[in-house]
């Protein structure tokens, strides 16, 4: 199995919104390659006829009736907010 390239590390880091220093890119390239090599073992099996399992529990139709419940008071909505502007959350411009 091919090792993960530097560009691939940067690509997944961007997708996952992780800013990495050059040193980190090198370190993770090494470690992620080792991990991918280990997990690539799954490809050894012939599982074409085996269905995927997304969930170990075979249940379905877990839902709730359409009946309102109380919302959070504003002081709790914003209790942990890093930046608040009036009754809005504020972030740098998107």
């Amino acid at each position: 199995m091919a090792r993960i390239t530097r560009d691939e590390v940067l690509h997944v880091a961007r997708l996952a919104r992780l800013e990495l220093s050059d040193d980190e890119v090198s370190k993770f390239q090494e470690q992620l390659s080792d991990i991918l090599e280990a997990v690539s073992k799954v490809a050894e099996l012939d599982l074409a006829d085996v269905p995927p399992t997304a969930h170990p529990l075979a249940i379905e139709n877990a839902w709730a009736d359409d009946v309102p419940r109380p919302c959070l008071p504003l002081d709790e909505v914003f209790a942990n907010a890093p930046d608040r502007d009036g009754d809005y959350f504020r972030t740098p411009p998107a």
Partner: protein
Amino acid sequence: MTVDTLRLTAEETNGLLTRKEASSDEIYRAYLEAIDARDEELHAFLHVCDDDPGEGIPIAVKDVIGTRGIPTTAGSKILESYVPVYDATVIERCRARGLRVIGKTNTDEFAMGSSTENSSFGPSRNPWDPSRVPGGSGGGSAAAVSGGLAPWALGSDTGGSIKQPAALCGHVGLRPTYGTVSRFGVVAFASSLDQVGPVAKSVRDCAFLYSVIAGRDENDSTTVDVPAVELPRNHDLKGLRIGVPTEMNDDAPGIEPGVRDAVRKAIELAESLGASVDECSLPLSVEYGVACYYLVAPAEASANLARYDGVRFGLREDGADFREMVMKTRDVGFGDEPKRRIMIGTYALSSGYYDAYYGTAQRVRTAIKREHDALFERFDVLVSPTSPTVAFPLGAKIDDPVAMYMNDVLTIPSCMAGLPGLNVPCGLSEGLPVGLQLIGPQFGENTLFRAGHALERALGFDVVPERLR
């Protein structure tokens, strides 16, 4: 009166209360004093509550479990300042029974690890030997119970985070059947694997705490009603059919001789208590379980940890625009292990790789589940060591992620299959505890409690660390 926090089980501590030999406050204070005395060394707690309300006995809570008004960091810098505005369902259920939160216990960051060395706030230490790890990710809860800082605790288990620390610290821990305990309010790592469970000194304590927290929760779509919990009283194992998967015992990867011998003796003892014992095989589960787990869990984690974006809670680093702010926040806030797993998971889900990695891992998961299901047509429980090794020294594996992952090789397969597992301490190797893993069929907790209780009695293992007796 003095409360022997090192030795008393939760059941015995509660006895002091019901017999009015000690008040709830006296008991609470006794544990606070134990924390004062020993937590500087063990670092089991990230936060200690001076006086949590309630009429019952204390409980320690792993710091991934949300507690209203009490800091909940999940062992991560990114949540260092986070104080939940709501209780997790398991906390509500504990409070309804009068249990008082004595503190929040240390964990690998977002429960990702096997030693607590991935905690942003420094590792916990093993009460049997403080130069060694207590296991992980629930090493804080394990150290707290083993070190007499709490009568019992709540942990969470994704691939072994309750069972493995219990093994390394010499006490009891249950990872329940997936779907029996609510995850609502618990900081998510891997949603299809995470389960909250009890950490205790005895199997009966474990069974009781499980009965408190288990059952369908309307706030968690993946929970179900559970069979009534029976507190075990049996002394024998007559009629119990025990399966011994060879790949997880004598042939287990990296198994230490002392661990193998202690588990063998426990199995012989089970036979002498009336159980029938037979060898069996889980070839695919052991061979491919770890690889499967390290694709499924990181994939789910990559999405679960995406909400830490500096907008509504948690750490925020400055940035010129939204994107830069998010990237800096996550760079500074996450440690290496979450970063590694987020990247592996992102990679496994990304276009062009999904089928080869995540898709294939889901099929392997089906195969693992089927392999276990087939064995439970012949056996009531499967047994193996919980960890192939005893507690290892701090720093021994921290630079080798794959070696660290292999430490979970025996706990992971049944987690992938959604099955319950119980750790019961079964002896010492080189003066350190060895854990016996009992795996049951889906919803087979009562069977595990019966088997675990009889063995625990017969083994007579002293859960108080030798150096603290």
